[in-house]
């Protein structure tokens, strides 16, 4: 009995599976990091310089003498601080694209931790979640799928055609982190009298300096107030517990999406809702995400095009596979003879948009001289 439980526990936490979920999550999460850090950078002078709210000496005082990972420790030169922010945003962008993913995610994590230790006074829970998740991504093989690294590997013939399975413990860690967030916020809230008496959701919208868009007034009165307060606790508790059951997962996550949509609409908490909701992706297995993409692919089948090689040339197998991987939901195929639509090839390949200046050259390099035989069309 114990052995069976241990085996199930071991396989759940440390089993192997598809890297697609982590790849997709990496893209979404790193895009949010780029946006979040860029927004913070618009406050650069106030937030990170000696003439702002938190000079380096104040940040040092906050550490209470405990050493912190902070490449900006003791740095008072604004250009150097700006360079660290710029490097972190660039690393997050590369991580989003999956280019040099391992190095990019490590640089991104070090950058975020350093910036948070440089000014901890302005952080909210969304920032905290962003920081710890960036660290988890840095230790995960999140570049194995949905990445330019994989496309380059396919081009060179060094990456396997099918995704090689990875140990899923980093994905499980992100899932557990999400449960920790929700469980402990419920535990802490249960210690407050306004959550127990069902009036807690009355207060935040009354804070003029915190509220954003309005809601119909009846929403903050009578029975609706209690539904809002107890509903928040129930949804958060479910997001910590029931979400692990495949039977309830979809409904619990939909409840979470609704809850955070309301929080984002009503309150001004930079990036919090977007970051926490992005972690929901990790509650789906790679094969589920892949099956979803395949279903979409079938739905988009009428947009499918086949790009033929130019006359006198033929597609090289590995590069053609790499180019196909740049496409969205398999809408572009390379290799067969058919209608040649090179413009459609890049337009339907989001992964190729950065390579537009060299797109024609890439297409050409993906072909080789063919034995004398006519093919239709040209790229």
């Amino acid at each position, binding site marked *: 009995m114990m052995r069976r439980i241990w085996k199930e526990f071991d396989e759940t936490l440390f089993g192997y599976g598809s890297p697609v979920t982590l790849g997709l999550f990496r893209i979404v999460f790193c895009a949010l990091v780029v946006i979040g850090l860029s927004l913070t950078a618009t406050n650069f002078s106030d937030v990170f310089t000696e003439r702002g709210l938190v000079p380096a000496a104040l940040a040092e005082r906050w550490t209470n003498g405990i050493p912190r990972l902070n490449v900006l420790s003791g740095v008072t030169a604004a250009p150097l601080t700006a360079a660290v922010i710029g490097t972190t945003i660039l690393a997050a962008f590369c991580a989003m694209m999956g280019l040099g993913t391992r190095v990019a995610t490590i640089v991104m994590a070090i950058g975020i931790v350093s910036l948070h230790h440089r000014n901890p006074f302005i952080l909210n829970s969304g920032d905290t979640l962003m920081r710890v998740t960036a*660290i988890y991504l840095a230790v995960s093989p999140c570049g194995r799928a949905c990445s330019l690294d994989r496309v380059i590997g396919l081009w060179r013939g060094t990456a396997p055609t099918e995704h090689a399975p990875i*140990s899923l413990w980093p994905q499980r860690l992100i899932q557990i982190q999400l449960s920790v967030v929700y469980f402990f916020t419920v535990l*802490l809230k249960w210690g407050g009298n306004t959550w127990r008496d069902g009036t807690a959701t009355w207060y935040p919208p009354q804070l003029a300096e915190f509220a954003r868009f309005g809601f119909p007034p009846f929403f903050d009165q009578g029975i609706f107030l209690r539904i809002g307060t107890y509903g928040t606790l129930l949804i958060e508790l479910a997001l910590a517990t029931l979400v692990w059951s495949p039977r309830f997962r979809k409904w619990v996550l939909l409840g979470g999406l609704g809850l955070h949509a309301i929080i984002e609409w009503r309150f001004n908490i930079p990036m919090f809702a977007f970051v926490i909701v992005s972690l929901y992706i990790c509650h789906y297995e790679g094969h589920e995400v892949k099956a979803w993409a395949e279903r979409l692919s079938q739905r988009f089948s009428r947009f499918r095009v086949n790009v033929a090689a130019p006359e006198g040339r033929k597609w090289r197998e590995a590069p053609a596979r790499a180019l196909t991987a740049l496409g969205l939901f398999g809408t572009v195929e390379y290799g067969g003879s058919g209608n040649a639509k090179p413009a459609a090839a890049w337009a339907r390949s989001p992964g190729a948009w950065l390579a537009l200046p060299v797109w024609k050259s890439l297409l050409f390099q993906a072909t080789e001289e063919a034995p004398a035989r006519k093919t239709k069309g040209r790229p």
Partner: protein
Amino acid sequence: MQAKSPGVNPLIKVGFVLYVALICLWSLPRAPRDLRVLASPRATPEMRAAVRKPTPYEELLIANDRHVRGGPAGRVLLTTGLWQYWDMFAPNPSVNDFWVTADITTRSGRVIPYEYPRVSQVPILRKYRSERHRKYVERTRLSDFSYAQPYLANYIARQVPFDPGDPPSIVTVYVHEREIQPPGQPQPNHEKRLWFRRAVQPDEVRPR
């Protein structure tokens, strides 16, 4: 549909389990303020005798504060950036609605009024940006962070144009606040209260 595991390094497994346990302990509520002295290794028997007897749950929180938050494992979280708090709207949502203004008194006695950035006064696209300012004040108003006041005073003094021959000498910071009352009760107006007053040095507030 997981493939058969070729095996994760046992050290990673042990580290994983310990780490999850650690962040769970770290995320527990802190001991009540009046009992925190019991978590301090420097607390004398007299100091311990002066506080009330904790409940078993409070004993657990005190032990957690002392051995996890204050121990080597807690320091690892602090150093690496893995520290975390999940007290969103907890234990109760904030009931304090506030904004900040200041009077900057120059050496000659001239008073220059200043309004600290207010989220409610900026267009929607700038609200995210202003929230960082609001959060800073919300945090530095806590007694634990009162050491930030001189830095805020310097910042405020730098925000207004002044004659280099007549630099700011004193910054008086006010909080306009009101406490939100429970639903159905009349809501008070904001009241202006003195937060703190600080002398500032001319070399700290040179114009931009």
